[in-house]
């Protein structure tokens, strides 16, 4: 199964990476390549939308973790949204969800982001 990668700009200098298909050993290098070339390493926020991701292997996980690490290095935000059950299970097995911002839905993430922004605003005032 191939992997379809779409990258869109988000507000606040963020990027949304929408994945569809299978993120496995064969397709993981494609995603890594796209991220290396199209995502600024100093981006404020990366949202990885896995709504249409059907399959995720450990090679795919590695790319996701690496992207997260990229963001962590400069306190950027990395969020996963719309995980399908089988994909969520992969994260659960390796117990990797704990340190991640994972949202079931877009709304949940939007709420989170709104809260964060409010916090920042309150902190400023």
């Amino acid at each position, binding site marked *: 199964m191939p992997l379809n990668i779409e990258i869109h700009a988000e507000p606040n200098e963020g990027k949304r990476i929408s994945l569809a298909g299978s993120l496995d*050993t064969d397709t993981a290098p494609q995603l890594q390549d796209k991220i290396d070339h199209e995502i600024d390493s100093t981006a404020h926020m990366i949202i990885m939308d896995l709504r249409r991701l059907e399959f995720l*292997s*450990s090679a795919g*996980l*590695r790319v996701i973790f690496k992207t997260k*690490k990229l963001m962590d290095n400069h306190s950027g935000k990395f969020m996963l949204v719309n995980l399908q059950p089988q994909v969520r299970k992969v994260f659960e*097995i*390796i117990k990797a969800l704990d340190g991640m911002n994972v949202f079931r839905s877009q709304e949940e993430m939007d709420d989170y982001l709104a809260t964060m922004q409010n916090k920042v605003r309150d902190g400023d005032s």
Partner: protein
Amino acid sequence: MQQQKDPFHSLATRLSLGIILLGTLIFIGVLGSNYVLSRNLLEQYVGELARTTAASTVNEIESVFSSVATSADSLAAIVIKADISEQQIQDAIRAFLKINRDIYGMAVALEPNVLQTNIGQFAPYYFRNDSSLSYTDLAVDEYRYLTWDWYQQPKTVTRPVWTEPYYDRGGGNVLMTTYSTPLLIADQQPFAGVATADISLDWLQQLVANIQILETGFGLIVSQQDTVVAHPDQSRVMKKLKSTLDSGFIEHYWDKYVQSKRAQQASYFHAPCRHEQGDCWIAIKPLLDTGWKVVIIIPESELSYEIMLLTGEIALLALVGLVVLVLVIITHTRNMINPLERLASVTAAIGSGNLDVKLPGPSRNDEIGALTTDFRNMRDSLRTHIEQLRQTTAKQQKLESEIEIASNIQMSMLPGGGTVSILDQGYQLYAQLRPARSVGGDLYFYQHQENKLDFIVGDVSDKGVPAALFMAKAVTLYTGAPNEDLSPGDTLARMNLALSQNNDACMFVTALCGRLDLATGELIMANAGHMHPLQKTQDRINELSVDGGTALGLMENVDYPNVVQVLAPQTSLLLYTDGITEAFNTAGEQYHDERLFTIVAHASQTTAESLGSTVLADVDAFVDKAKQSDDITLMVIHYGH
């Protein structure tokens, strides 16, 4: 190269043959039209020749005839005087003969007692005999001049006549025709005799014999009564034309001509010949006054012969031209084709792998030269590519052999080198690792010390060389741990700490680590993001929940709790990596946990090895011919005697 042996498949031969064929067709066409045109021209020329020959012959004859007639008329004018003496008449005849050399002989023949009553029959005749003149008296009984045509006709018609040709026996004794003009005293009457002048037919014969048109054309002269007066064939002279019609043209055409109004005019027509095969061109011109006709006959075969001769010469020229053309074409096509043939043989040589074959030099500026240059470039780039491929292949082979060595090293890090089966006091252990590629990221290990069986099954993210290196690191870290008697949880924590430091590649390894007390059945397990093991007792199968922490390498300082339980004897424990549950078949379907559950549940409880083999065989059967997508590791631990 094989087909070149057949000359008809050669481009040069086909080109030459095509041009030769076309050239031949063109030459035949030109020859044909040339033949027709030549024939038309020649016919016009021959017709003109026939007519002019006829006209000139007639002119020549007429000039002689008219001078002869004038002489006779003048003699008549002299003789008609009433007081002329016989001697004077004879003198006059001799005088005219001396002046006019065209005349063979002359005579004056008097009607008895008309001109002068004292002169009866009187007919002196002088004629040429070699260079002198001879005399004959025609007024003798043997001759009886009064009865001859030349005397009777002018008397009858009272005007001058040209007689039919005749043999003047007793007179001139030659074949002759005679112009005879009547002596008429005072306005036509009374008739007093005739004055005559003879023309020897020898002269006409000579004239006709000299007529030669082309090779076989000839002339003849016919009198008013259709008697042949002159003919190249002497034997036909003095015969009636119709009795010798084979000498010219058939009766029908002659009669038609004679009876037509054209009979007094020149005529030119085409009629069948009798003496020759085919037709003749015939020109007829009448001699004025006499009713005689000059006929010129040219057989058409003569024409055809001339045309054939002409056409033959042209055909010879054309043939020479064609041969020259063929030679030029063959030379030229050879020059064109030879480089192509060389290129073809070079292509064959290159096709069979000889890239060092010599190419013809780019000595030409045309398409073939361009082709040769392109071909040279192709050969060179082919050589470069093949060299690159050879180098790449060599590198690849080197890499493969290196990976093969790496694989051996990797497998040698595992107990049993990838497959192990142990039947020991109190436990059985079976483990197998199948990398998806030469090297892989799965790992297993076990260590039996005293009553403790330590074991681990792990799965490094991704596969291939990076995973293998990470696996080696993990195995090395693990093998150091049991000696220090760390619990499984502590072992994992220590490994995690080491693996997560400086792990920029974010490699990680999931692992299930355990320790089985063979004496008591106490099992301590810790889990780093790995799939839970399956437990099969004699009556049921279930997933043994081992709650743990994050996979090794992702986060520093993770705690891995030790999960403790006691195994009942005859319990089998299955530890596996996702290479089994995420094995795909050719249809792209996944093996799944359920199937693993089912096969384990139905497997007969015999040995660890038979259970492990059953599971792996089922995975193999499911995957069938699909390529193995991930490393597969299975470990079965059977507890109990």
